[in-house]
């Protein structure tokens, strides 16, 4: 009974050590990857309205509407240590009240094995483009970028911005009528 338990103990400890070592090697092997890729972005029709935001302060705020184009091939980013890529499309802009605003308009989870080639034309955003107040009307520089968060099997969680951004301008008047 003694030797059986101690053998079991040794096997268990050895298995744990080997698994820990393998995990560490897995992390090291991909830690220095740049995870960079080129991305082409564009926008179609862009408009802004002033709407009461019932999900927040219930004041009237600027609500932007855009349709976007996205062209990217992210298949080279996948390796044995990448479980999934979390893609997110960010709109970054400056307003009078806030120096830096970042809003995620669209995101997608791409797991290893799934299709990682994107060719979207005039796609709708997933999330509403609310500003904090009235900073979208007539805004001369709103920059769209696509970034991804690499989720590994074990290791770091880097956020990488794709090379290739697109800037657009909001019109100076609120649009009326249907969306």
């Amino acid at each position, binding site marked *: 009974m003694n030797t059986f338990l101690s053998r079991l103990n040794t096997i268990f400890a050895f298995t744990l050590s080997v698994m820990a070592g393998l995990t560490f090697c897995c992390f090291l092997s991909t830690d220095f990857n740049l995870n960079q890729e080129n991305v082409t972005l564009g926008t179609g029709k862009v408009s802004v309205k002033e709407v009461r935001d019932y999900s927040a*302060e219930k004041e009237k705020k600027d609500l932007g509407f855009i349709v976007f184009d996205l062209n990217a091939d992210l298949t080279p980013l996948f390796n044995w240590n990448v479980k999934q890529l979390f893609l*997110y499309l*960010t709109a970054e802009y400056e307003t009078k009240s*806030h*120096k830096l605003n970042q809003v995620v308009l669209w995101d997608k989870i791409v797991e290893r094995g799934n299709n990682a080639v994107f060719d979207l034309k005039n796609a709708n955003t997933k999330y509403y483009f609310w500003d*904090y107040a009235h900073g979208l009307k007539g805004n001369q520089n709103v920059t769209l970028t696509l970034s991804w*968060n690499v989720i590994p099997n074990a290791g770091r969680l880097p956020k990488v911005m794709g090379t290739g951004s697109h800037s657009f301008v909001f019109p100076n008047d609120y649009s009326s009528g249907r969306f």
Partner: protein
Amino acid sequence: MSGLLNMDFLDEVRRMNKRQLYYQVLNFGMIVSSALMIWKGLMVVTGSESPIVVVLSGSMEPAFYRGDLLLLTNHQEEAIRVGEIVVFKIEGRDIPIVHRVLKIHEKEDGSLKFLTKGDNNSVDDRGLYAPGQLWLEKKDVVGRARGFLPYVGIVTILMNDYPKFKYLVLACLGIYVLIHRE
């Protein structure tokens, strides 16, 4: 004559057992204080009050499942940006929540308001915040997720869900450390 020898031998055995017992207790104390030093040291290096957390809910699937381990840092000079996975606490509640930043609005002086959402949730976290709270601020953040280890935290989940298992594990560990002669 042989009787006296027997008593001497017994005394020596009893004395050795006491010394070994003290040794075992000191050994145990060393292990506990080393673990505490490592934990506190990690807290200083990462700047977070809770440098290692176990994922408790499925709101970030398929990236993080229940039982995965996250390494957090909370360096104030690293600004919070969208796409980051932050661990935050709602005022008045104990449970840390691990979600992703969806929107930020930062003023010139550095004050920042941000909104979060779990990857696996269909709506943002406004419903989770305290009543009347619409945004999170830097002070609510416990840490930012920087590293990830799968499955390792499953022991914590098991111990939370089955408290009897927790006592069993602690008892076994205690007995093992006291008996093991190395």
